[in-house]
C-alpha cells in the first residue's frame, strides 16, 4: 500500500475480554504456537454458557471510586477499555490531545435493576391495576442515578468525565451495526480531514440476565457445555455464546500520528457496511462487494478475523463465503474465543487485527478442527461482522 498523509492508522488498542486485560495478554495469544484456551462460565447463568470478564482492577483506569459507582458494568467496562486505548496510544493525560479528540461510541442500553423489576412483576401478578402499581413502585424503588447508568450516551459521557476526551462525543446504537458504523464513520471523517484523531469503540456486558433474555427471545443461545464455534449443533441451541468484552481504538491520520511520533499498528485500508434482505444470496452479494479491497493483499499473509455470531445458518453461510471468495486466507472466529459482543463485536475484531499486524503474528487457530494454521506472519487482515439480526460490515487492514 502506498502511504498518504490522510491514511487512517491505528495507534492505540484498549481491549478487555475473558482472555485478559489490555494488549499484552492478547498479543501473547495471537502470537502463540498453541491454540488459546477458552475461559467459560457455565454455572452462573446455566443453562447459558458465557465468557466472563477477567479480574479487573477498575481503579487502574477509573481513579475515583465515586466515578466507578456512577456506572453500571457495561459503562465501567467501556470507560476502562477506552482508558487502556488512550494509554496504549501514549495519549493518556495528554490534555491537549484528549481535549481535541473526537469520540464515537457504539452502545447498547444499560442494565435493568433485576430486583426492582422482579418486585413489580410479582406484585402485578396479584393486582389488576398494573399501571397504577407501576407508578407507585417506580417512584419509590428506582434509584435516580440508575437512569444515567442505563442511558446509552452516558458511556461516552463518562469517558469525557474520566478521561477528558472532549473534542466531540457521538453515540451510535443498533447492535452489531453500531460498532461497524462507528469505525466506518471515524474512518471517513479522518480520511476527509474532518478529524485528526478519534477514539472509537464499544463495550458489552454479557453477565446480565436482561441481555441473556434478549437473545433467548429468539432461542439464540448455545446451551450447556461450550463447543467450538464452527461445530455447534442445532441440538445444543441457537449457536451464540455471549461474552463480556470492551474494545476501543485510537485512530489517527498518518500525518497526525507521525508528527507526534506515535507507534502505528496498522492502517485501515477499507471499511464498509451494508444491510438488507439476506434471502436468495443477497447477503453473499453484499459481502462480496465489501470484501473486494482484500483482493489487493497476498492471501497467505492475510488473516481473516470472522465475527460470526455462531447462529448456525449465518455461520455456515459466512464460512462458505470466506472459503470461496477469500480462499487461502486462514480464518479465525474470534467470537468462539471471547464470545459474541453485539455492539462491541466489530471493534473487538479490529482490535485483534491491529494487534496481529502490529506484531507480525502468525495467529494460531482458535478452533483447530475447523481453522487452518497460518504459514506466514500477518501483513493484512480482514475483519467481518454479520449482525445476528441485521447489518454486516467488513474492514481490511494493512501492516505498516
Amino acid at each position, binding site marked *: 500500500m502506498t502511504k498518504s498523509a490522510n491514511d487512517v492508522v491505528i495507534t492505540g488498542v484498549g481491549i478487555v475480554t475473558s482472555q485478559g486485560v489490555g494488549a499484552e495478554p492478547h498479543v501473547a495469544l495471537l502470537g502463540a504456537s498453541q491454540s488459546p484456551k477458552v475461559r467459560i462460565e457455565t454455572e452462573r447463568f446455566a443453562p447459558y454458557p458465557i465468557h466472563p470478564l477477567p479480574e479487573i482492577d477498575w481503579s487502574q483506569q477509573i481513579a475515583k471510586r465515586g466515578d466507578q459507582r456512577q456506572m453500571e458494568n457495561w459503562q465501567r467496562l467501556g470507560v476502562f477499555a477506552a482508558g487502556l486505548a488512550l494509554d496504549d496510544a501514549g495519549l493518556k493525560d495528554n490534555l491537549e490531545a484528549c481535549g481535541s479528540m473526537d469520540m464515537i461510541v457504539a452502545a447498547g442500553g444499560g442494565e435493568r435493576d433485576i430486583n426492582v423489576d422482579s418486585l413489580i412483576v410479582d406484585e402485578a401478578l396479584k393486582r389488576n391495576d398494573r399501571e397504577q402499581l407501576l*407508578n407507585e413502585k417506580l417512584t419509590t424503588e428506582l434509584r435516580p442515578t440508575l437512569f444515567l447508568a442505563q442511558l446509552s450516551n452516558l458511556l461516552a459521557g463518562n469517558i469525557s468525565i474520566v478521561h477528558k476526551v472532549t473534542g466531540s462525543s457521538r453515540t451510535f446504537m*443498533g447492535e452489531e451495526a*453500531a460498532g461497524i458504523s462507528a469505525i466506518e464513520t471515524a474512518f*471517513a471523517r479522518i480520511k476527509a480531514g474532518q478529524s485528526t484523531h478519534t477514539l472509537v469503540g464499544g463495550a458489552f456486558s454479557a453477565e446480565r440476565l436482561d441481555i441473556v433474555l434478549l437473545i433467548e*427471545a429468539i432461542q439464540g443461545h448455545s446451551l450447556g457445555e461450550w463447543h467450538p464455534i464452527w461445530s455447534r449443533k442445532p441440538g445444543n441451541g441457537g449457536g451464540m455464546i455471549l461474552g463480556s468484552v470492551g474494545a476501543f481504538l485510537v485512530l489517527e491520520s498518518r500525518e497526525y500520528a507521525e508528527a507526534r511520533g506515535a507507534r502505528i499498528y496498522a492502517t485501515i485500508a477499507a471499511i464498509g457496511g451494508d444491510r438488507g434482505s439476506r434471502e436468495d444470496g443477497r447477503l453473499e452479494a453484499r459481502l462480496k462487494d465489501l470484501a473486494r479491497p482484500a483482493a489487493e493483499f497476498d492471501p497467505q499473509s492475510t488473516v481473516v478475523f470472522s465475527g460470526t455470531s455462531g447462529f448456525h445458518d449465518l455461520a455456515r453461510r459466512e464460512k462458505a463465503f470466506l472459503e470461496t471468495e477469500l480462499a487461502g486466507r486462514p480464518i479465525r472466529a474470534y467470537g468462539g474465543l471471547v464470545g459474541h459482543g453485539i455492539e462491541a463485536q466489530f471493534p473487538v475484531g479490529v482490535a485483534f487485527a491491529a494487534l496481529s499486524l502490529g506484531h507480525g503474528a502468525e495467529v494460531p487457530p482458535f478452533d483447530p478442527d475447523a481453522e487452518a494454521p497460518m504459514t506466514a506472519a500477518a501483513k493484512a487482515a480482514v475483519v467481518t461482522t454479520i449482525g445476528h439480526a441485521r447489518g454486516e460490515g467488513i474492514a481490511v487492514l494493512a501492516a505498516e
Partner: protein
Amino acid sequence: MSKAYKDHLGRPIVAVTGMGVITSLGQGLEDNWAALSGGVSGIHKISRFPTEGLSTRISGTVDFIELPAENAVERSYAMARETTLEALAQAGLSGDFNGPLFLAAPPIEPEWSARFELADRSPPSERPGDAYNRFLAAMRQKADPAFHEAVLFGSISERLADRFGTRGLPVTLSTACASGATAIQLGVEAIRQGRTDRALTVATDGSLSAEALIRFSLLSALSTQNDPPEKASKPFTKDRDGFVIAEGAATLVLESLEAAVARGARVYGILRGCGEKADLFHRTRSSPDGGPAIATIRAALADAGIDETGIGYINAHGTSTPENDKMEYLSMSAVFGERLPSIPVSSNKSMIGHTLTAAGAVEAVFSLQTILTGTLPPTINYQNPDPAIVLDVVPNVKRSKQVTAVLSNSFGFGGQNASLVMTAEPA
C-alpha cells in the same frame, strides 16, 4: 464544481430540499407553523397512562398517529415515516432515496406491558428477584421474536431503510437532547466527504412512558407546574422549574447544492455550519462557566464561515430548566457580547415542550421556516422575566422580521452540545 457550489473552505454547500415535522401541535409543517407562530401550546394532561400520585402529570405527547401496537418503537417509527414522507414529497423525490440514512432515535427497552405478559406465562416465583430466570424459562418454552425485535435499537432505521430505499448501513444515534442536531451534522459531513450527493436525516422520539417520565422526575428535571399544562414551559422566566417532556419527529432532506440545482429542486435553506464540543464537568450538569457550550457555538460559526455579527436570530435550546437557560444565556453572552440583547432569541419549547431525541431536528425545521417566512416564533408564557437573563425572547407574540442566518442550539445530558447555523438560499 463551480465556485458557487462551494463554501468558504472549498467544501460542497449543503442545501435543505425537503422538510417534514410532527409535534404535539399537529402533523405537517403547515399546521405546526400556524400553531407555533400563533403562540399555541401543545402541552396537555397525560392520558396515555395513569398519572395519579406522580409529581408531573403533563406532557407534549403525540397521540394522533395511528399505530399497529402501542409501544415506543411503533410510535417512533410511525412519526419518522410520516415526516419522511412529507419531506420527500416536498423535495419532489420518489422511488429509492439512494443516499445514506442518519437517524436519531431514543434508546428503547421492553415495554412494561411486554414484561407483564411474559410474567403471565412464566413459572411461579421461587425466590425474590427471580423474575428474569422465570422469563428465560418461558422463552425456552416458546420463543417470542416480536419481543426481540421490539428492543433492538436498529429496528427503526431498518424499517425506514426498507421503506425509503436508503443506501448502505443506516446510522442510529443518540447524543441525548442533541441527537437531532447530530443526525443533521452526520448528513452534512457525509455530503462534504463527497461520499454522497444526498442524505436523509431523521430524528424521532415517541418514547414517553410512565418509567421514562418517572426517571426524569427523579432527576428533578421536569416542571411540576401541572395546572394549566400549557403554561408550564416558560423558558427564561424567573419561575421556570423544569422542562416539559414531549414527543415529535422531523426529517430533513439534505443535498449538495449543486445536485439540488442540477435536478431543479427548490432549495429551502442552507445547512451552513455545525459545531460540537463535549463537556467533562458532570453527568447531567453543564460546566458552570459555559465553556463547552461557548466552544460549540463558536465552532458552528467558524464552520459556517460567518462571525457573530452575521446571526440574525437564535433558536434557543431554552428548555425552561433553571440551569439550562442560565447556562445558555451565559454562553450566548460570551459569544455575542453586547450585541446579544439586540438579537431575538426564542424557544420553541415554550410551546412544544422538549422533544428530546427529536428536538435538534424539529427546531432546525422551525429555524429554516423562520428564515423562509420572515416570522419569528415567540417564546410564550413569558410573564415574569428572569432579571438575570437579559434577552429579547420575542415575548408571547410572533414578530415579523426578515433574517438570513439562524443559530440553533442543542445541549444534553452526558456533556452533549451541538449547534447548527442555517442560512437563506443564496439568491
